[in-house]
């Protein structure tokens, strides 16, 4: 089952009794504050255009109130858009009938929630089965499939406990197992790890990355944590006040923050552990020199390799061992410690 890309086009959401009446005004440039003051409507999302990669992890990042949770709820239409399109496999989700939408939710999407949202009166197994039960899959079959995922997320032996008997981290594993058991093409994760403590969060990120290598679902992941975004995201969109202010790869966002707001975020990032060698390498000129460093290595690891080899120049190779570019220590260290001039100016 191949996952498709999700295309969000010109999406607006205005909360309030007559939201649709104000789309034009917002399009013409009315600000969030103005809309609230003069019409008592709240601007949730403004002209969102994102193309979410098929089979990849799309991270939507923003602080609270930025509209990220509103945005993810448009993909399975838990929130009705005011105007715009959300396309999956050529179909506009916003125009689906109630029955089509229910089928879409049952078979194409699965969601993981920040506060887990498990059914407290059902055991872990019964919770994990929930999606299949709704789909009408027979009891034995759904039990078998649910047990498989309970095992995969490391909860074997807990299947007959109740959610309240588990810790937060374990409850979220149930949330993940419940979503994965659905075997849907789209996995929606709404601040799924935000309620977990840092070590467990990293642990759960690893679980997701490992599973994603094999599952290749189209994942939409919401977070307010840039480190999490950089670790998970094939593509990242940053939201503020309901608008996308930058989207691109994590490498792009760290190296070329679009404005002061993002630069302020990025400043705290450990660049040596985020930026990869192919981002700072220069085109090959002349002979291949120094140790070979595989593409995808982060700068810190590359610097370690260079210093232990006592070299000042290395070359980057692809998985097949073919040289891709030249890496010199000067550029490497420069990229690790300094921000680009524009960013520093922007931040000031």
């Amino acid at each position, binding site marked *: 089952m191949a996952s498709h890309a999700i295309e969000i086009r010109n999406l607006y959401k205005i909360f309030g009794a007559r939201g649709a009446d104000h789309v034009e005004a917002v399009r013409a440039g009315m600000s969030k504050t103005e809309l609230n003051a003069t019409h008592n409507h709240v601007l949730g999302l403004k002209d969102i255009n994102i193309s979410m990669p098929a089979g990849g992890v799309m991270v939507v990042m923003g602080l609270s109130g930025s509209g990220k949770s509103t945005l993810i709820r448009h993909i399975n239409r838990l929130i009705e858009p005011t105007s715009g399109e959300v396309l999956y496999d050529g179909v506009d989700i916003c125009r689906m009938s109630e029955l089509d939408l*229910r089928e879409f939710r049952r078979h194409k999407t699965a969601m993981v929630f920040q506060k887990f949202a498990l*059914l407290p009166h059902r055991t872990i197994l019964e919770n994990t089965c929930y999606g299949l039960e*709704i789909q009408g899959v027979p009891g034995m079959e759904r039990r078998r499939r649910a047990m498989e995922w309970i095992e995969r997320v490391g909860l074997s032996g807990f299947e007959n406990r109740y959610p309240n008997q588990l810790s937060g981290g374990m409850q979220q594993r149930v949330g993940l197992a419940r979503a994965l058991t659905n075997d849907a093409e789209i996995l929606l994760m709404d601040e799924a790890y935000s309620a977990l403590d840092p070590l467990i969060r990293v642990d759960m990120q690893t679980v997701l990355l490992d599973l994603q290598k094999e599952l290749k679902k189209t994942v939409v992941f919401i977070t307010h944590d840039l480190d999490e975004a950089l670790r998970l995201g094939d593509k990242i969109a940053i939201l503020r006040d309901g608008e996308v202010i930058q989207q691109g790869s994590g490498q792009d966002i760290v190296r070329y923050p679009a404005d002061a707001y993002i630069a302020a975020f990025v400043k705290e990032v450990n660049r040596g552990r985020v930026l990869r060698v192919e981002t700072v390498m220069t085109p090959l000129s002349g002979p291949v020199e120094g140790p070979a460093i595989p593409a995808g290595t982060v700068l810190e690891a590359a610097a370690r390799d260079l210093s232990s080899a006592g070299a000042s120049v290395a070359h980057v190779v692809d998985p097949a061992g073919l040289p891709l570019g030249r890496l010199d220590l000067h550029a490497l260290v420069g990229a690790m410690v300094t921000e680009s001039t524009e960013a520093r100016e922007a931040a000031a």
Partner: protein
Amino acid sequence: MALCDALPTLLCKFPAIDDGTIRVVRKTIDESFKALVRSYANVIDVVVAPLQWFLNLLERSFTGAPWILVLAILLAFVFAASRSWRITLGAAVAMLAIGLLGLWNDTMITLAIVTVSTLLAVLIGIPIGIVMARSDRAQRIVNPVLDVMQTMPSFVYLIPVVMIFGIGKVPGLIAVVIYAVPPMIRLTNLGIRLVDKEVLEAADAFGSSPWQKLKNVQIPLALPTIMAGINQTIMMALAMVVVASMVGVGGLGRNVLQAINNQFFTIGFLNGFALVGIAIIFDRASQAYGRRLQKHSEVVHG
């Protein structure tokens, strides 16, 4: 009335509608209501027939069966609900005391009518509560009706009940149900409305139909509150069977009524305590059952 001398009569003596007009209005309403009841007498008989049949059946089996069998079934029921030996033992002591005081038969009659009216109240109350929880408009309409039902003195609505259904067990039963159903409706509504929004959203996200959501999420999560409603309904039904004895319901209530009329202090209190005894049995058993339903929410992990 010095003050009245200074004021026009209109402001001093309340300008009531004159007696003649009120009499005409009263007569018209009473007579048209009676005529309405008369013309639907057959329909009413057919409608209440199953109630009559069920009530009689239960009453006959409660009073007709050997007391030891009834007691055993009652205690088994109490134990099944509460899983507590203490409550079961208390119920046994209370029932034996009632029997020793010669009130066994009357108690059985009262139990029968309380059982039927509670079942009826649950059957009526839960669906109305569900409708109320799903629609704010339904809530706006039903709430004032419930307010009236709960504050209107029960003697007042005995009047139309007697006019429509006559004197007897079934009118008494209907009066009890009217009195006992509001907490069932209110608490069903409240329970469903209090269900965690996040969990509901999750149910939606997995594509639940409205029926699946009701069956899998709303009712189970509202169940403790609904159980509290059933508990309240039983208590109110027990309180109302005394009043309903005025329209012909037998049992402990009738004894109390006779005691009031004849100033039989001891008989009055003995019957009163028998009612209290049954009330406590039902209350403890249903509350223990309600607590057992919530066992899953005990936090074992810190």
